[in-house]
């Protein structure tokens, strides 16, 4: 027992552990170094330092009643808890807590798929159910519903939703917090609460009308610390009959303005799935002259970029569109997208992609030899969980004896405009270079449309290579670097949508309108519903009264 929860005596902690054993059994109260090692953040930016966010113990209930008992014990001994679902929130802290010394409430053993309804298109699950588990459940029963998976897919619908994770299919479904439809929560008091129609004792539409009557507190639990979610409904996409993709490319750098507006229009009419932006000019990055132009401090020169693109007979931008529906409706939507792009953007090229009956075969999911080179990840666009993206972290053919240890994520929320993208390209790149960090950002970097109505711009970085955290200097560079990037983003009115525990205070600090009215409101709620401050202190930048001095 190397670490104690802050403010808890050794005797009280021993008593709490004994009560946990009484609640869940000796086997599921873990406190040895070996048992706790997997609760570290494997990609921590501060590995093996004094302030690494390590737990004091872990307790693993498998019923709601056991969760209630754990919470009541924690209240008795003022023991901070940190609930996790499957603990796979890597790059955002994994299973590690916000407050060093917290007891992890590991909900993995609560792993029942309670219902999948393929007529009304929803699921009701426990926290330990992973996307792989739910996918297998659906496939084994031949049900005609799809998941919207994050990438990689070994996390859980509840865990991912509670961190406002995202996916890759149609807009409504890929906003996982938005597709949540009713939660059951163990509150800090130990009481069980259900939201929406679940609050009706005999509610029959819990997963269909999530609001119920009066305020809907379900939205308080993602990135919050007001309760432990023990059940959640999520909307599932009916399996479409057909999937089709197509590519739009546009010649000039400034054409991104009209391209973004065109895609916004199609997206907001719910005609397309997740659009994938890119640049054909990436093929030129090996060319010294082009690379200098694409990484020029202060931003690229438009005329110079257009000249280099024209000389190489390449277009400047592309977006790959995907359509879900029937063969005829997907064709009609693609034909309309082509008509719109041709009308809005002179010189646009419109290239038919593949037209495939759903479900795709294994070979079709693996296929990358369509009519054009595609960046679109086929598994996730088909609702199939995968770990294939792990290839980005492992050894490479070019460097088989080294590997990136992980990455620090920073996805800045931008307005959906080309101007914001142009700004973000050079603001983030220049800042990273000034900080001595390796940066993959350049004048070709494109936004992500994981959320239905916002751009996310990736300004994260690997913690391998030149950004390695193997030395104290390396760790400091990474930590300070991320904070400097966040500060620079805030100057431009952007910020992070999600963060690892180590950086959550930094992000929350930026949401400071009217002297932090939002944070003060959140902490007023915290003090009211969790007066002893036992649930995930610090999560989302929300600290209980007695721990506010710990705010970073």
């Amino acid at each position, binding site marked *: 027992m190397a670490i104690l929860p802050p403010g808890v005596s050794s005797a009280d902690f021993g008593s709490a552990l004994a009560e946990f054993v009484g609640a869940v059994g000796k086997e599921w109260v873990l406190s040895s170094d070996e048992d706790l090692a*997997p609760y570290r953040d494997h990609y921590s930016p501060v590995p093996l330092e004094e302030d690494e966010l390590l737990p004091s113990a872990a307790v693993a209930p498998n019923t709601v009643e056991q969760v209630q008992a754990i919470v009541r014990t924690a209240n008795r001994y003022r023991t901070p808890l940190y609930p996790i679902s499957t603990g796979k929130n890597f790059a955002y802290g994994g299973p590690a807590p916000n407050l060093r010394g917290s007891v992890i409430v590991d909900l993995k053993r609560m792993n029942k798929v309670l219902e999948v309804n393929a007529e009304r298109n929803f699921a009701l699950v426990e926290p330990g159910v992973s996307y792989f588990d739910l996918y297998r459940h659906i496939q084994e029963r031949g049900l005609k519903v799809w998941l919207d998976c994050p990438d990689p897919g070994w996390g859980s619908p509840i865990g991912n939703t509670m961190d406002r994770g995202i996916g890759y299919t149609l807009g409504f479904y890929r906003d996982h917090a938005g597709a949540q439809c009713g939660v059951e929560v163990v509150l800090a008091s130990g009481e069980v609460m259900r939201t929406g129609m679940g609050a009706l004792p005999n509610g029959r539409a819990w997963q269909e009308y999530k609001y119920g009557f009066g305020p809907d507190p379900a939205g308080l639990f993602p990135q919050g610390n007001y309760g432990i979610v023990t059940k959640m409904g999520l909307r599932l996409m009916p399996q479409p009959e057909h999937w089709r993709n197509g590519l739009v490319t546009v010649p000039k750098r400034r054409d991104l303005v009209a391209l973004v507006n065109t895609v916004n229009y199609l997206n907001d009419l719910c005609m397309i799935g997740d659009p994938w932006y890119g640049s054909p000019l990436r093929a030129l990055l090996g060319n010294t002259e082009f690379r200098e132009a694409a990484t020029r401090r202060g931003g690229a020169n438009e005329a110079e970029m257009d000249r280099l693109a024209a000389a190489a007979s390449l277009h400047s931008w592309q977006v790959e569109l995907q359509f879900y529906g029937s063969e005829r409706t997907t064709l009609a939507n693609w034909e309309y997208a082509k008509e719109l792009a041709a009308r809005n953007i002179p010189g646009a090229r419109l290239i038919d992609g593949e037209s495939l009956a759903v479900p795709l075969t294994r070979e079709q999911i693996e296929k990358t030899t369509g009519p054009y080179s595609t960046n679109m990840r086929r598994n996730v666009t088909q609702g199939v969980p995968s770990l294939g993206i792990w*290839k980005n972290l492992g050894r490479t053919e070019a460097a088989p004896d080294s590997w990136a240890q992980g990455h620090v994520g920073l996805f800045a929320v931008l307005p959906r405009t080309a101007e914001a993208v142009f700004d973000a390209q050079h603001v983030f790149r220049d800042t990273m270079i000034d900080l001595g960090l390796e940066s993959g950002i350049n004048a070709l970097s494109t936004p992500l449309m994981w959320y239905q109505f916002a751009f996310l711009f990736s300004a994260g970085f690997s913690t391998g290579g030149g950004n390695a955290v193997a030395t104290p200097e390396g760790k400091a560079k990474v930590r300070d670097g991320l904070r400097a990037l966040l500060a620079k983003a805030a100057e431009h009115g952007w910020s992070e949508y999600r963060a690892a525990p180590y950086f959550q205070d930094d992000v929350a600090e930026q949401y400071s309108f009217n002297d932090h009215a939002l944070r003060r409101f959140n902490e007023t709620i915290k003090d009211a519903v969790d007066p002893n401050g036992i649930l995930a202190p610090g999560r989302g930048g929300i600290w209980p009264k007695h721990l506010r001095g710990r705010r970073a």
Partner: protein
Amino acid sequence: MRRSLVLVTAGAFALAAGAITAQETAVVEQGKVVFQHYCAPCHGDGRGDDGAPMLPGTHALYLKYKGQKPELLEQRMDLPAEFIRAIVRNGVASMPPFRKTEVTDEDIAALAAYLAASSRARSRQSP
């Protein structure tokens, strides 16, 4: 050749290993389930995403061992339970660790039994 191999059944293990008890067969079957659930999405056979020739874990071991050892865990004959446990509980390189709530110590022992049986069976199938 690697891709032509197929997963073998517990029955094949029994033939490969000679006379083994029903309990041992059940352990191997349990290990197979654990492997397929937790290991195969990264360390299994078959292609990775986006046209990658192998899944990420398999590819990492292919690059690491450069042909000196099989990249497929199911072909490895040098993975005792204690070694597997150390890797599973602590992670290695970009592979994060797994907790007891995911893979129990009993699961790890079963996994070791499965990998031993699998590698024996596959070595018999190889020309």
